[in-house]
């Protein structure tokens, strides 16, 4: 007779358990999000992460073990990023018309994100690891980790800041933009993509296709701008 413990041991050795857990946790998060009428405060990613981390901590499962299953979901980020070309293509006329506005806003936004993040962390007494790793927090994860490496931060710490920034933007962006009275979908999307990369883009896509297209564009452009600007500025200001 197989005991529950045996089944548990079998399942923990296969990636299926943690793949299923990831999907179920997200469904739970999404159910709450839908139940709260898509109020951005009930961010499904955040809810899913809280559920997952709680389960992993309670069952003493390491992140490495978990990721063996979760990597199948994680992998789809690549093709999904490529797919952002489609909403962008559909809005190409609108994007072309505002090319100058996009470029200027994006560069100013990109500098604001990096400079304010480092300054605030430093001024409030954050350790060196924290404020250095904070610099590329608004940049999509793979690029952000590369930037951190160049300026002497901790790439995995940066990855965490990037995700938390994305969730913060997705939760608080819409209420802030409403409070500021900014109704232009292009401006709203561009700001979400610049400040909170793919997670902000996911939220923008859920709300409006124009916003989604500009958010996807901003995410890509901010990755490029930050990768060029942050290491250069860092060496200029801190001399390494």
């Amino acid at each position, binding site marked *: 007779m197989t005991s529950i413990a045996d089944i548990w041991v079998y399942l923990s050795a296969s990636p299926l358990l943690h793949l299923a857990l990831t999907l179920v946790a997200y469904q739970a998060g999404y159910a709450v999000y839908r139940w709260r009428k898509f109020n951005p405060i009930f961010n499904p990613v955040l809810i899913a992460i809280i559920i997952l981390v709680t389960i992993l901590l309670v069952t003493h499962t390491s*992140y490495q073990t978990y990721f063996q299953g979760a990597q199948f979901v994680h992998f789809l980020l690549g093709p999904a990023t490529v797919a952002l070309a489609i909403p962008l293509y559909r809005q190409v006329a609108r994007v072309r018309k505002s090319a100058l506005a996009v470029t200027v806003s994006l560069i100013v936004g990109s500098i604001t994100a990096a400079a304010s993040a480092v300054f*605030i962390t430093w001024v409030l007494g*954050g350790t060196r690891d*924290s404020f250095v790793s904070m610099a590329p927090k608004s940049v999509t994860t793979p690029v952000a980790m590369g930037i951190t490496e160049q300026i002497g931060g901790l790439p995995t710490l940066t990855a965490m800041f990037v995700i938390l920034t994305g969730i913060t933007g997705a939760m608080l962006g819409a209420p802030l933009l*409403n409070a500021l009275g900014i109704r232009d979908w292009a401006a709203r999307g561009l700001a979400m993509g610049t400040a909170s990369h793919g997670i902000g883009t996911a939220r923008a896509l*859920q709300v*409006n296709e124009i916003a989604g297209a500009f958010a996807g564009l901003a995410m890509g452009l901010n990755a490029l701008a930050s990768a060029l600007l942050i290491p250069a500025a860092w060496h200029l200001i801190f001399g390494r």
Partner: protein
Amino acid sequence: MVEWFTVLVVFQLAGEILSAATKLPVPGPVCGMVLLFLALVIYRRVPDGLAKTAEGLLSNLSLLFVPAGAGVMLHFGVLQHDLLPIGASLVVSTLLTIAVTAALMAWLSRKASGTAPGPKPAAPEPEARS
């Protein structure tokens, strides 16, 4: 479905190769997005199957961040130690970035469109989902 997923993966691969070959500081998938965008500009329309596949992926985009997000559990120590500076920085800097970028973009687009007020979004409240 599978053939269009293949297209996305092949563009991602092409993007990875382009990114590695040119040493551009842009990740492969973002290069792949640019390549697919250029392909669509040349082809001048989005094939139905590709549109459906992309929509399937993008409507679940936020799910794809969950595995990486669970990585916060690796850094509880740092989070605890630097809770105030990290928390304040994440919230204030992110809100500041959104406000500055959106306000500048809205202002510049309004200026560019001159006297004619640009096409305003029909719905005032952006919260509803289809």
